[in-house]
């Protein structure tokens, strides 16, 4: 069937915009690249620099604080298994990427969420943007990320942040909006400033909901970091990717299992933090 109208050159437009950005704002991208790369390297240096048994002990302690001794036991066995299978270093590389992506998501996401909760118009603009960020197939983010930042961990982290940040923004916004109206009234009636109301009433009450958002962000970051191995981010994702290309079932399973263990760990520990502080 012939087209009534010629196809809109949307792809060309996007390329023009991206080209323009790259030409004019190259130094900004370099700066971002250095900051993100530095953060990942720092986490990586800490996690792989420490002896593995010390890292395991630290994780077991965190799991114990967040949950019960069963969780601590699972952490101990799980991490020992990863070490035994020979995926320790790659796991720590993955963790460094996830932590960096999660950190950036939180640092940008929480203020954004607060802004959305305060301002109706901001929320109206941001909500569809978040929908877009979450529904666009994650692979698509890899393309501009490569363009601006080349191959490697930095574009991987950036794609992860785009993919992982929405829950933090959404649930921060939601958590603050769910604070009962009479508590807001009480806070106002005693003469609180906006900042006092935010820090003494809204954020503490929204904390559980916000932690659920941060938890989701971390989980999404993990899933995206694995995908990001396609553009050269190191870690467990690279092992899975290699196993897939070589149709190596055994290796694929091992690397996949390591990812699952990491996922459960991160999930339970962050969930535990949310619950404990609210008790």
């Amino acid at each position, binding site marked *: 069937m012939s087209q009534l109208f010629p196809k809109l050159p949307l792809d060309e437009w996007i390329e023009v915009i991206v080209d323009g950005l790259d030409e004019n704002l190259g130094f900004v991208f370099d700066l971002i690249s250095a900051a993100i790369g530095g953060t990942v390297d720092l986490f990586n240096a800490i996690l792989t620099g420490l002896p593995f048994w010390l890292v395991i002990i630290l994780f077991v302690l965190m799991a114990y604080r967040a949950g019960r001794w069963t969780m601590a036991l699972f952490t101990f066995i799980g991490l020992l298994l990863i070490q035994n299978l020979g995926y320790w270093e790659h796991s720590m590389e993955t963790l460094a990427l996830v932590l960096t992506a999660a950190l950036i998501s939180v640092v940008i996401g929480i203020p954004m969420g607060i802004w959305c909760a305060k301002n109706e118009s901001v929320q109206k603009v941001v909500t569809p943007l978040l929908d877009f960020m979450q529904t666009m197939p994650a692979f698509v983010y890899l393309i501009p990320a490569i363009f601006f930042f080349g191959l490697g961990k930095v574009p991987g982290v950036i794609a992860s942040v785009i993919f992982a940040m929405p829950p933090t923004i959404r649930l921060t916004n939601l958590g603050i909006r769910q604070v009962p109206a009479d508590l807001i009234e009480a806070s*106002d009636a005693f003469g609180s400033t906006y900042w006092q109301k935010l820090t003494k009433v809204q954020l503490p009450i929204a*904390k559980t909901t916000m932690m659920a958002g941060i938890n989701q962000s971390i989980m999404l970051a993990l899933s995206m970091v694995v995908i990001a191995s396609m553009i050269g981010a190191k870690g467990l994702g690279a092992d899975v990717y290699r196993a897939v290309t070589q149709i190596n079932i055994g290796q694929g399973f091992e690397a996949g299992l390591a990812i699952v263990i990491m996922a459960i760990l991160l999930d339970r520990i962050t969930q535990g933090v949310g619950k404990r502080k609210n008790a």
Partner: protein
Amino acid sequence: MPKITVENLTKIFGRQPGRALPLVKQGKTKGEILKETGLTLGVNQASFEVHAGEIFVIMGLSGSGKSTLVRLLNRLIEPTEGKILIDGVDIVSMNAEQLQQVRRKKLGMVFQKFALFPHRTVLENAAYGLEIQNMPKSEREQRAKESLTLVGLGGWEQSYPDQLSGGMQQRVGLARALANDPDVLLMDEAFSALDPLIRKDMQDELLELQSSMQRTIIFITHDLDEALKIGDRIALMKDGAIVQIGTPEEIMTNPANEYVERFVEDVDRSKVLSAEHVMKRAETITLDRGPSVALQLMRDRGVSSLYVVDRKKTLLGVLTADAVNDAKMHGKTLEEVMRRDVPKVGPQTLLNELFDLVAFSDIPVSVIGEHDRLLGIIVKGAVLGGLAGKVNQESTLPTEEEGQVKV
């Protein structure tokens, strides 16, 4: 000079409220304005004065604008037009910063649903108003403690609000407002969410506190009994407008119009008094006790039946003296001899619906609140007493000595 002077205070809800103002001034009613403009008239040109040290009650049915009016006084809701002078200074024309200072120093507020901060201890709640004024920690905690002691909550400082009963939570609300040492207390249906018996306790305590502290109190309520009991003067509202202001005596004996008259008539007994007005405190027991304890309790209290409740005061059944004796002789548990077919009514059940039930029941009728919570019991004599004018108002709270009349 009056403490508070309110002049022609009007609030219109909706977009571009100004367009309804001319209509308000023409004296159109709430209904007419809604029809013509789609705007809701919340408060209609209210004017009144409140003197220092008086309890000024604003009363009306729900939707009459009384809660809006009290929120206009500290600008939780922005007035559309009018003046509010506190100590002669108009707060409507104040900027945000000046308003904050007035709220901090002069106006305390107590809320219907307590509005305590769940993540803060009782002490931290009471100290909130001082904390946001950046008072040093030791000093504000000292003052919050004094304030809590004043409302009878000494020793509960480290508890969290959800560990307290409704009545205690509202005491915290009151302590929080008092800690700031405000001249004016705004109390928005402060006791309406409490159980009837607790509500009466709180009214008494408020009056007692007021006799020693002499603050200016603006008290919102929908309950005429409450208004008559605590108000020095009462303003009656209808459809956003104040229809009469006067002392309780004036309002009762000299109603300004038909509306007030109907309101006041309703104080009249038979169709208006409900179960909560005539009920007495029930003697209760939990199921983890044995028959001997139950008998001892009955002897101590001089009653012939005990009401079995669980820890949440949910009514499970009733124990008669005969049944407990039987249990003791034959080694049965209380649960086995407990009667479960207890006659129950809600606190709002009117007296004329109670006659049959009370007359033909061999045990007192129980009054049940939400979630089957036992609020009190009604004995035969109390219904007659209620009709004769003896209701739970002033200090007719049943004491332990009175207990429960043997049926």
